[in-house]
């Protein structure tokens, strides 16, 4: 698989704009993001990125692959952080920096002694805005999971256990081209839906039953996240329909109101306020409205109470309000959305 240098180039532009001479990338999630590669362990590789150059410090074993897969990196056969500082010195680079939240104390001390500055959150800021190639992969992962829902509904039969139903759903996603699961599927029947972190069990689906399923797949390393709640049978409980309508409407309200420039807490309040007005239900909405996603299932931004993060064009996050009544019933409705200039666009739709 040939990597793309799109993310690295974008990051180099950010460095240039901020006047940073070089940045040491020391955590593997950031390394994998910028290199568009999948190193396994926490200390399999480090990067040193300047506005015009990039080095990858790794084992020769990886370098063999990397030279072909990511030719825009110069490989250095070393995993000693001191060699990164030495490179900065060798090239007389001014204002080098590192992220104090993404490096161990020993290495951070070494960089400080070498004159590096502390610069938190710069890779995270780049990562939260998705580039076109990333959006394409997320979109594909989203389509697969949305399409899987339609097929699953036609196949679901009374008597299946949660475990078996989850397996069926996952099989459908794989058959549609998923390359992995984004997280373990939550399949909750009946009152089990009231636990937002239910672990699937042997509970069988009744002829008339509530179903809540929260799942997602990966496509070429990028995640999707979707939740559907529905009534299996012909006679939905009145309470189910009532709650479902409120949750769905809260979700729709978020889609309608989301726009760039809002903060995470402002958008979260849209769902929460809607539920409160619908009959004082906000206290049953016990989690955040949404979270960002990309190469990881939970990324910035957080769409929740006390989140001051500003929502920007190109961010991908979930819209997932829910209401939970312990021991009785739970309903959640979730889509993955892309924020554009014109507002939120739902990505979890079938073709």
């Amino acid at each position: 698989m040939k990597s793309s240098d799109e993310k690295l180039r974008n990051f180099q532009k950010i460095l240039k704009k901020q006047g940073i001479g070089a940045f040491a990338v020391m955590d593997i999630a950031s390394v994998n993001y910028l290199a568009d590669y999948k190193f396994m362990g926490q200390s399999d590789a480090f990067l040193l990125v300047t506005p015009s150059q990039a080095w990858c410090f790794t084992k020769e074993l990886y370098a063999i692959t990397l030279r072909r897969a990511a030719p825009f990196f110069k490989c250095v056969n070393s995993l000693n952080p001191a060699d990164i500082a030495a490179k900065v010195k060798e090239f007389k680079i001014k204002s080098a920096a590192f992220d104090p939240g993404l490096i161990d104390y020993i290495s951070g001390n070494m960089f400080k002694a070498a004159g590096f500055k502390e610069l938190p959150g710069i890779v995270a800021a780049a990562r939260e805005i998705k580039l076109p190639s990333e959006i394409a992969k997320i979109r594909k992962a989203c389509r697969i999971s949305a399409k899987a829902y339609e097929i699953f509904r036609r196949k679901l039969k009374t008597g299946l256990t949660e475990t078996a139903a989850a397996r069926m759903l996952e099989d459908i996603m794989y058959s549609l081209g998923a390359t992995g699961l984004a997280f373990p599927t939550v399949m909750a029947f009946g009152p089990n839906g009231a636990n937002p972190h239910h672990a699937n069990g042997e509970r069988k689906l009744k002829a008339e039953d509530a179903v809540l399923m929260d799942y997602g797949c990966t496509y070429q390393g990028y995640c999707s996240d979707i939740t559907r709640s529905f009534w299996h049978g012909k006679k939905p409980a009145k309470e189910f329909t009532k709650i479902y309508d409120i949750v769905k409407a809260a979700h729709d309200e978020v889609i309608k109101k989301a726009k760039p420039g809002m903060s995470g807490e402002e958008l979260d309040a849209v769902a929460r306020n809607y539920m409160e007005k619908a009959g004082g239900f906000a206290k049953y909405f016990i989690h955040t409205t949404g979270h960002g996603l990309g190469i990881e299932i939970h990324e910035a931004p957080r769409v929740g109470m006390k989140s001051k993060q500003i929502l920007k064009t190109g961010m991908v996050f979930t819209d997932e309000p829910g209401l939970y009544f312990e021991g009785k019933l739970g309903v959640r409705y979730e889509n993955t959305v892309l924020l554009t200039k014109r507002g939120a666009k739902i990505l979890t739709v079938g073709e």
Partner: protein
Amino acid sequence: MSKLDNVKIAALKNILKKNKLNGYIITDFNDLKYFLGSAVAMPGEAVILFHSKGLYMAVRSLYEASFREQFPEIKTEGCDADRAEQIIKQANRLGLKNVAFDSSKEIYAAGKIFAGAGFKEAPGLITALRVSKTEYELKNMRAAAKIAYAAFEHIRKRLKAGVTEMELCAELERFMKHKGASALSFQSIVAFGAGTGNPHYMPGNVKLKKNMPVMFDFGCIYNDYCSDITRTVWYGDKPAPEFKKILKIVREAHDMVAARAKYGMSGAEIDAIARGHIEAAGYGKYFTHRTGHGIGLEPHERGDISQLNKEKIGLNYCFSVEPGIYLLGKFGVRWEDCFYMTESGIKIIN
């Protein structure tokens, strides 16, 4: 029910005593998982202060209630910001004088605060504990290995012309998860043809054709513990003579390690068994990596079987044995199982 293991607690107490410490801060996600017997919160959301009188935890308040219920013996407080400050406050309240943090794992920003409070650096105390596995850990590693071995038997039957590497990767993941794995140890490698000549190949949309070598390197996580196996096979009835030759050498090297690695040897000495055989066969320079790596909660842990590791491999250390020969551009062979050290030599984990 609490999964706190008294053996681990006693061992850490002992280490603190030796280091003349009366408090140690644990923040690393996998160290916490090791210590508590299960995952807690998300990485960076929980900190433990292990001290001579007990355990204290500052955790994101979302998890506070369930954590208290799960671990009644740990004094737990919810804390959504400045967990380092909270830990320092607690250490002062307890009157602890010699507290240390793990400077090899603690993030710089927090380490600076701890150092500012006069805490000492004591890198890797839990890392050192983690290399030797308990019976409970071995049990889970066996379960993880069993799933991976079953997956290999399953996947080898699905080799047919036209199938892609990614399709087999997806099938491996699906199969292992349905057998109880919670996740993959790492992204699986399925390599066809020349891809096998690259020890860190990334699978793609290459299609399988008759008479091609195929390499599988994968593993799964069961109850937090990893497995890791590699198999290389020939698809078709006319294996290239050189493939047969290097497959034989690699398997011999692997089997020699299994038979000859003894308790008391260092990582380098065990590595030399495999390397010596491959060198004697004339392929030394094509064996481009270490013979193995430590494994446990993480797919790569301390305790390498490599030329650089002069440390003794102790009892119940778990590690991979995975010699390989790579003829770049042509093909390669790797064969891997995981083992643990006993008094009477190494035993396969399965």
